[in-house]
């Protein structure tokens, strides 16, 4: 059963459909693995009981030949900032440590209704504010790659099976990236087949890049945010983490589409995407934005980037340099908008209706102050402070309004590129391979975000779909990935080319022993 856990959804789905595999057995194996891999700290809560119930229900559908589709019986995980009825939803914070929502986020509801099995809620930076999954109330998450636990796996590379070389000591582990680090680890390790992340500045693609999995940020408005506890409402998108592009598509086809509960979803009905079996990329125009070749870009990622563009070119695509001149302002612009929305979104946490209520009864203001300073970490508090400063009536024009203007300039950069006939953009996802924890925490949260989100953030500014695909391993055996960006609602094109790349680079697969 174990070797099935690192298979694709398609392969396992076939075995479930043919009754070769019982969903409850698959779930049991996956649950067992969550226990073995607990040191990675991928999950805040493993939903043992729920998974058991759901998988038994799937069993009976299997028995009565009434399976609900390709995701029925498939173990999944959900980032702990999506509401799940009856299951704690903590946002990795003390503030919401005891919060149990009464409703399901639309994306989880759709997955549940498609028969998938919830394994648990995954770790993140508190309220998704971070890029390392290190600022969690429940402690940091560890990348499977480069950890001792990777010894449980075999590296399957071009049908060669290799033992994984011995790795650094326990003190020297690699971060998973973030903020959806828990989801990325859960997928990369086989604790689930797919996981939901969220992506406001790169929070799905960044950990996907570091953990060697596929990470999709769909077009803003294609997937409902109802039930996603917001970070930056105007940029947040539910993200999808899987091991293959096909798996990613299966999840996207299940969760995408308009939702009455989210007025910002695109009203046009969603037509499930099908990828043709013959992947022809000749004639495609693929742009390489020169601004993404920044000073911090590692030599390994850069050569990786050039190699893949060469492969594309060889296959008949036209690869050309393009310019997105406002890229360098994206991060600072994001920093202002993010803090403004954070300040606003966080004002509901007053400890009255739900969440942490401090022991304080001298006055209402004192109760607010104490609950909020106990319930939020430094990162959240400092963003609230800065955001409120930006929103003061005397500062509003100078910060918020200006940032909105810059935001539209960044979006225009992309429009110009698309208008010139470019079909897709190929860029790095992250500037380096996953950093070591000790190195990562040398810089503060804000400094890290500005480096980590450099390549991913602009897509959020413009609402574009973007995907991170693992390409190869670095010299020290860590995943290196690249990002594709497409015009709004061009997910089909994005996934088609992603799959073409996936097929040709043959990123080594981790297979459980």
């Amino acid at each position: 059963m174990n070797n099935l856990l690192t298979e694709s959804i398609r392969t396992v789905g076939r075995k479930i459909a043919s009754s070769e595999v019982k969903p409850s057995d698959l779930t049991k194996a996956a649950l067992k693995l969550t226990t073995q891999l607990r040191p990675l700290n991928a999950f805040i809560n493993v939903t043992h009981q729920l998974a058991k119930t759901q998988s038994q229900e799937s069993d009976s559908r299997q028995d009565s030949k009434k399976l609900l589709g390709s995701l029925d019986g498939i173990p999944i995980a959900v980032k702990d900032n999506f509401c799940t009825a009856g299951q704690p939803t903590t946002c990795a914070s003390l503030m919401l440590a005891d919060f149990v929502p009464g409703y399901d986020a639309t994306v989880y509801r759709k997955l549940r209704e498609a028969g998938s099995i919830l394994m648990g809620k995954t770790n993140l930076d508190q309220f998704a504010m971070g890029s390392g999954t290190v600022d969690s109330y429940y402690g940091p998450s560890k990348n499977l790659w480069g950890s001792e636990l990777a010894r449980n796996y075999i590296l399957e590379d071009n049908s060669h099976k290799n033992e994984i070389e011995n790795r650094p000591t326990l003190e020297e582990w690699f971060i998973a990236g973030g903020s959806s680090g828990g989801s990325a680890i859960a997928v990369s390790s086989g604790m689930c087949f797919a996981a939901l992340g969220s992506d406001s500045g790169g929070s799905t693609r960044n950990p996907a890049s570091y953990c060697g999995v596929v990470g999709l940020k769909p077009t803003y408005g294609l997937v409902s945010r109802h039930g996603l506890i917001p970070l930056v409402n105007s940029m947040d998108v539910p993200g999808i983490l899987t091991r293959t592009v096909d798996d990613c598509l299966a999840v996207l086809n299940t969760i995408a589409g308009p939702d009455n509960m989210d007025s910002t979803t695109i009203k046009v009905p969603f037509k499930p995407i099908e990828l043709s079996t013959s992947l022809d990329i000749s004639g495609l125009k693929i742009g390489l934005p020169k601004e993404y070749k920044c000073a911090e870009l590692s030599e390994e990622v850069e050569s990786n980037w050039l190699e893949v563009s060469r492969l594309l070119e060889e296959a008949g695509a036209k690869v050309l340099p393009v310019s997105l001149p406002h890229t360098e302002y994206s991060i600072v612009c994001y920093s202002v908008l993010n803090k403004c929305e954070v300040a606003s979104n966080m004002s509901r946490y007053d400890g009255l209706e739900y969440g942490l209520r401090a022991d304080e009864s001298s006055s209402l203001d004192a109760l607010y102050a104490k609950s909020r300073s106990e319930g939020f970490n430094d990162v959240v508090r400092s963003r609230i402070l800065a955001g409120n400063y930006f929103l003061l009536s005397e500062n509003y024009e100078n910060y918020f309004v200006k940032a909105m203007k810059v935001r539209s300039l960044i979006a225009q950069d992309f429009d110009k590129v698309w208008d010139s006939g470019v079909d897709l953009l190929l860029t790095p996802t992250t500037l380096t391979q996953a950093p070591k924890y000790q190195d990562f925490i040398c810089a503060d949260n804000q400094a890290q975000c500005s480096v980590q989100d450099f390549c991913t953030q602009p897509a959020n500014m413009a609402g574009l779909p973007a995907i991170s695909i693992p390409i190869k391993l670095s010299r020290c055996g860590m995943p290196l990935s690249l990002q594709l960006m497409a015009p709004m609602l061009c997910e089909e094109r994005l996934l088609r080319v992603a799959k073409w790349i996936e097929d040709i680079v043959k990123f080594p697969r981790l297979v459980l022993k």
Partner: protein
Amino acid sequence: MPRLLVNDKCLKRNYSFLRRSFCNAGSGKSIKTWNSVVGLEIHAQIASDSKLFSAASTKFGKSANSCVSFFDCATPGTLPVLNKKCVEAGVITALALQCQINQISYFDRKHYFYADLPAGYQITQQRKPIAINGKLKFNVFTSVANKESYFKSSKLKQIQLEQDSGKTLNDESTKRSLIDLNRAGIPLMEFVFEPDLKDGEEAAALVKELILILQRLNTCSCKMDEGALRVDANVSINRPNEPLGVRTEIKNIGSVRGVASAINYEIKRQIDLCEKNIEIVNETRAWDVTSNKTISMRSKEDKQDYRFMPEPNLPPLHIHVDKELKNTHNLVDATILKTQMPEMPQETRNRLQTDYGLSKTHSIILVNEPILFDLFMYLITCNKNRSPYIVFKTIFHELLGLLYKNNQDNDYVLEIRDEFGKLIDFLQSEKINLMVFNNVLKELVKNPTISSKEMIEKNNWFQISDEEELKKICQTLLDENPHLVEQYKNGKKKLYKYFLGQIVKKTNDTANMKKVDQIMKKLLQ
């Protein structure tokens, strides 16, 4: 046709609204040396079944926190979903108030911390509201006694859609605050008027007219006792030709009478202060109904910065306003709503004057009382022969007083309107006189099941209008009192009244006195 005289005393007694509004008319010599400036901000609860951004019920008087959706208590991850019905109500109200509808409007977040504001912000329309630049024209009475009124027009700066907050109840016994979120998220229209009124009477008259319009449109119940309509008034005073003074804001005035009283009190208070050379401070005050005073709530000096921000979870609100274009996106359609507009109160008043010959004052009085207006229209439409004049008079001079006296709700008129109509017909056709009319009506107001016809027959109350019969009765009276006739003829004209009185008595109030008068005069020649 019997003539019922317009009697101002009667009007005053019966017509409570006028009485209420005018008891506080400010006067006094110092007022002449000061101008007063009043601007109103009115929150009207939009009549809808569900809240502005959630599906929770808006029913009044439900048990605490029973009408609260996940969104209403700001559960993380929930998003606002705009209620289309509320947008339609806003648009039709804006059209009725001659506003310019903004083809695109936006929602904003207004931040402040309060226990009954669960999200820490209110969703409102600050930057670009649904409608702007309207106006409201209304009648202001200067005094009841001489029935003088003038038209006044106030500029409506904007109408914005916004959500209400919850309610905090302070439990003194346990020293705890209790929060009820039933009201949180209730849809409101806020009307922001320019400060172009001068006193409480004008303000009360504006509010009254707005209420009539909203009730006609069915966009607000206007039940002020349920908080469905709340008035904030900005008041300042200045010397003629000097800049406006420091203003105070009176919050949440809960009745039309309160509007006039609170504003007039505040004007007087400010004048008193200024004349004592005490500075007026910019502050928020509350109208205390028991002491009839405005009371300071908080100073505006510790003014809040609301840190307005666009609401990112609601797309811009588009309204279809151009007849020439097709409404392809199924937007709220102002061009269609415009054609569905009911008659506005002023149009009704004009119609009452031109079609039914009522005076301006009577038309105002009638339109001010929707239930009695409906009764009036019912009575004159189901029997076209009825005299509008008689119908108006019998409603306001006879019926209204009796309803108050018997503590009957105005809704009670629905139960008795048909019988009341029959009674009017008896009066109009002179089958009974006013006295009998009143006697029967007194019973009808107590008991809706009685038949006026039966009652009149049983008591033999039909009016004697037959001239021969009346002549006989008169002659008999005169024959019985020869010496009085002689005294009358000798110049004691006072006796004429006595004769008439005796006829009333003899006929048990049923003689047609107009005819008796003519006959008697002839007989005594």
